[in-house]
């Protein structure tokens, strides 16, 4: 082992502590603000821990904006997008992993390029196309966009999982007389299930958090998703009612944090594998 001197170690811990503070303090401040009464928010000397913690901000947040409806919209859009995305991505990922033809090469190329997708360039035509389909200001239009938006990552992730399934299993199934669909459904799919679940959850978070497309495509408040509704708290010229704003923002984050905590290991493991390969 390479030994580090005691002073070196201390320096390392100090640096780590600095990072931890940098990563955590904005979030702690958000929580702190969410529980502060209006009086404290107006005072010139804010404290880390609310002197007089209250839930009034949460109540006011629900009164001011249709948060429940927005959460419902977000949930519908994100769940719909995640389910459709894995439903159509899994078969294609299977083909990409098992076959090597010009089409699958092109698909892989598209997956890579779409990491760098200039979505300014895509949003205007997408808006026009969806307008012609009469799908502006509708959640179904947004779901369509989210499906395509999460496809590259889903394909990449799922193709990785498929490659990890030994091909011999499928050959054995074929020898036993199982057709292709049968093989996929009863041999491959069960083995892929955890991977499919992780991919779906990731697609879910991506859609739950997404803002730009939702901002452009959803016009009326009763259709808008949570991130768009949150910006309404900011009001004109950035005059904001801080307490309810913080409370609503805090609530909107919880689902993402929980879901992400569930799949973090898979995602970081995947990033590790992908990054090493790159």
């Amino acid at each position, binding site marked *: 082992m*390479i030994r580090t001197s005691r002073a070196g170690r201390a320096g*390392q*811990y100090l640096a780590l502590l600095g990072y931890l503070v940098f*990563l*955590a*303090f*904005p979030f702690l*401040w*958000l929580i702190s*603000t969410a529980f502060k009464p209006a009086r404290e928010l107006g005072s010139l*000397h804010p404290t880390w821990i609310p002197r007089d913690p209250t839930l009034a901000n949460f109540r006011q947040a629900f009164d001011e904006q249709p948060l429940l409806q927005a959460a419902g919209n977000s949930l519908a859009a994100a769940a719909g997008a995640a389910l459709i995305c894995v439903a*159509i*991505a899994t078969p294609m990922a*299977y*083909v990409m*992993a098992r*076959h*090597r033809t010009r089409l699958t090469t092109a*698909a892989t190329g*598209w997956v890579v390029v779409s*990491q*760098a997708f*200039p979505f*300014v*360039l895509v*949003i*205007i035509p997408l*808006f*026009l*196309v969806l307008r012609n389909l009469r799908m502006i200001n509708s959640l179904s239009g947004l779901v369509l966009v989210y*499906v*395509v938006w999460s496809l590259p990552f889903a*394909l990449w992730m799922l193709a990785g999982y498929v*490659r*990890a399934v*030994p091909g011999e299993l499928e050959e054995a199934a074929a020898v036993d007389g199982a057709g292709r669909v049968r093989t996929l459904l009863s041999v491959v799919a069960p083995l892929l299930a955890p991977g499919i679940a*992780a991919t779906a959850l*990731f697609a879910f978070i*991506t*859609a*739950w*958090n997404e803002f730009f497309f939702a901002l452009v495509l959803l016009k009326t408040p009763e259709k808008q998703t*949570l991130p768009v509704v*949150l*910006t309404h708290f*900011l009001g004109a010229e*950035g005059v904001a009612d801080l307490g309810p704003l913080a409370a609503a*923002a805090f609530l*909107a984050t919880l689902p*993402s*944090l929980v879901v*992400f*905590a569930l799949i973090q290991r898979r*995602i*970081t*493991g995947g*990033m590790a*594998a*992908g990054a090493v390969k*790159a």
Partner: protein
Amino acid sequence: MTSTTVAPPSGNQPERPPGEGRARRRGRGRGGPPGKPLDHGAWFLVLPALIPILILSVGPLVYGVSLAFTDSQAGRTEPTQWIGALNFRDLAQDTLFWDSFGIGLVWAVGVTVPQFALALGLALLLDQKLRLRWLARALAIIPWAMPEVVVGIMWRLVYNPDAGILNETLRDLGLGEGRDWLTGLATALPAVIVVGIWAGLPTTTVALLAGLQNTPHELHEAAALDGAGPWRRFRTVTWPAIRPVVLAITALNFIWNVNSFALVYVLTGGGPGGRTRLPMLFAYEEAFRYGQFGYAAAMSCVMVAVISVMLALYLVGRLKGGDER
């Protein structure tokens, strides 16, 4: 993805898949036997994903490029006409756009470079057997999983001139009365850049950490035995090993940062006086506030073209630099 989430990337930030490493060992990946050609069954499997991709991704991209050569506008009754390169000629004269473009470059570089440096530091620390690593891992979830809009809101609370913790801390430390960071002409851009760095730190760290954990440990010990100090070991052992990851993640970060929208939209809305008006915000306003679809498409084309060229130069330059060493 968004991104992440992802991505998302996002966000919105799109990330990378698991299973690649395992897959290669199984001999089914790149080095594996060539696959079977696509039969009817395979087409049946591909089409459900391929059709949406063609209609909603490849199609709009082509359509978007062609829009740049038209006078397409929102809510107009007469048909759209081809106007050749007129949009681009106008764009060349549009100082507001070039100002915005410059701000976009400052933003993208200003976020990507410190983000990389900080992430490398954190990754090196996490690669050591330090305690509290679990805490860093847990905290890294926050910027990574959070909706970009919430990140923006959160930092607005931090930067708030009266009720914000930043100014309060400055006052406590006796560093003056603090200021209104997000509306000050001089401070707005640096302030949003800090937020950008914060938001992308976990992704970058995880990628770099993966690279670090892939460096051969024996080489490190051999170098140490030969009397190489930490800096020397980093230069000769670690850096060459993580170079590919560094290239990939900085290039990706750069692209993601250029595409960034929600953060700055929420933090400043492009103000004060356009000081933080990133090209994305500019194009968005042009298209969806003023309805100039053709002109905004031309803007996007220029952005994409310039960014692609810069990235190509960066990657080629870096790869060559590697040969000389």
